[in-house]
């Protein structure tokens, strides 16, 4: 650091340290509470392994759906001038601020067996979302996709459109421009958005338990398992929490710069 750089005011530093402590203390506490002798055992019980596997499957699927559905959505939000676009964006980003349990209730209203759409899907295609893994994936996608959309929309807005024009003049059709120029140029943000959505899906609790229920092996993902174990076996709950904590921290640290830049 350059010596001429002025030091920050002491009061600001003190308050900032307090704020950091506010976040760090619970982290340290959970690490301290963990019984390291039994962590490995707690994480390798059949229930824990089932929850881990299910979490992995559901969160990866939710991230994949977010990319699949969210990329075209982000493109439309960034590039078109459809009427009512601010309203559309609001609807799409709502799950970011909505209490997840409310999201779960809304999903129930829309896709339970007793709802028109849910009933129709069940009768025609045999798909049932409530109390099924499909429902857990849907709930996670509902909550996680906005993180992907907002990241990729930002990247699409800030990219230099002249590259796309150059591609068109070279003879590329619209889809070729999209796949060979636009997507590669925003690839870092696509990866960042997908990772962010994945991390959010991994930690999803409220919408999942409300919509898909808490059924071992089918909808009981890690956070649900943590919640359940808390009643019976606190050590196991802490061990499972550690997994979520470490994964989330790794994702956030690896993304920090990208995420901050694109917003």
């Amino acid at each position, binding site marked *: 650091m350059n010596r001429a750089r002025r030091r920050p005011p002491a009061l600001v530093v003190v308050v900032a340290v307090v704020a950091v402590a506010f976040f760090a203390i619970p982290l340290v506490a959970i690490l301290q509470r963990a019984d390291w002798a039994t962590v490995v055992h707690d994480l390798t019980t059949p229930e824990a392994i089932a929850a881990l596997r299910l979490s992995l499957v559901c969160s990866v699927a939710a991230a994949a759906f977010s990319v699949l559905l969210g990329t075209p959505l982000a493109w439309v939000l960034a590039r078109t001038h459809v009427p009512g676009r601010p309203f559309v964006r609001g609807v799409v980003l709502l799950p970011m601020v909505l209490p997840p349990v409310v999201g779960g209730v809304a999903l129930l209203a829309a896709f339970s067996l007793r709802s028109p759409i849910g009933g129709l899907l069940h009768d025609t295609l045999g798909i049932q979302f409530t109390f099924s893994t499909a429902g857990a994936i849907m709930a996670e996608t509902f909550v996680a996709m906005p993180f992907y959309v907002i990241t990729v929309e930002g990247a699409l807005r800030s990219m230099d459109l002249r*590259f796309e024009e*150059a591609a068109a*003049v*070279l*003879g590329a059709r619209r889809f070729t421009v999209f796949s060979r120029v636009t997507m590669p140029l925003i690839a870092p943000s696509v990866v960042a958005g997908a990772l962010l959505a994945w991390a959010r899906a991994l930690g999803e609790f409220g919408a999942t338990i409300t919509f898909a229920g808490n059924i071992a092996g089918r909808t009981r993902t890690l956070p649900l398992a943590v919640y359940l174990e808390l009643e019976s076996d606190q050590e196991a709950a802490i061990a499972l929490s550690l997994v979520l904590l470490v994964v989330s921290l790794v994702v956030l640290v690896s993304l920090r710069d990208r995420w901050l830049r694109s917003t």
Partner: protein
Amino acid sequence: MTLRAAFRLGLGELDLDVDVTVPAGTVTAVLGPNGAGKTTLLRAVAGTIAIDSGSISLDGVTLDEPPAVFVEPEARRVGMVHQDYLLFPHLSALDNVAFGPRSRGSSSRAARTHARRLLDRVGVGGQADAKPRALSGGQAQRVALARALATDPAALLLDEPLSALDAGTRVEVRRDLRGYLAEFAGPTIMVTHDPVDALALADHVAILEAGRLTQAGTIDEVTSRPRSRYVADLIGTNLVHGTAGGTVLHADTGATFTVAEAASGAVFATIAPAAVALHRHEPEGSPRNRWQTRIEHLDLLGDRVRVRLAPPVGLVAEVTPAAAAELALGEGDPIWASVKATEITTYPR
């Protein structure tokens, strides 16, 4: 294979209204100040922006003629070298050049073979596998040209092709570009703000100011008879708007000039800055144009000192630094200026 663009297009502040015809095998340089609409003109021909009225045609095929016709850019046979080149940063130089042929239906292998040949031809075959950020300015310019030529375009559009280069590279790239343009069979439009580029590369120049073509013709025609302040400044001469009656010219600024050849009506007159002589005291002898005036501004320009005189004379004189020192010129000083009548060229407005 003529390119004809006669159209009108509004874009924000810009109201572009032009009529340009570029015959096959010739280069027309479009010169003009920033914001005049030069790049927009190229974009309209390339099809990345639609015109409001008029028409653009290439080789007899109408590309844009509202409301009925609009050919998408990917269906136009136009090659473009963009300002800052716009090489795709995620593709190697080779894949940048192969992008066009690939998009137009060539196989991957054929496109790459073609691209390699073009890169060799423009002298950057050794950089085929390099990403654009690893290329020097001159290399990137050559790759951009190869990319534009790779689709075998019927017309070539160059947007400030040399402006991003440093002085040394520029001379070399300009010389090579001249060779490639001479080989190119179709019409070329080159946008530039550097008259040297126009002089070196173009057959015709068109001056675009605030969306209007203020002057067009061969370089000789335009530079010998500038019709706007912009052109006069480009070639470094004084331009006087006035009304002539016989050998007397009344400038719009209020000054009066005596000219050698009789003229009448609204005229332009040019006076080379070097032909404007400065004196500390009233000059004696032959000059019939002499004024007592004041020095408004002094500017050292290379090995010459440019002296702007106060209105109504308002001319720029050019003297050597030695002469400036001898006359002890200073801004605001009173000064005598004189111009021989034979040094003033007039032509109708």
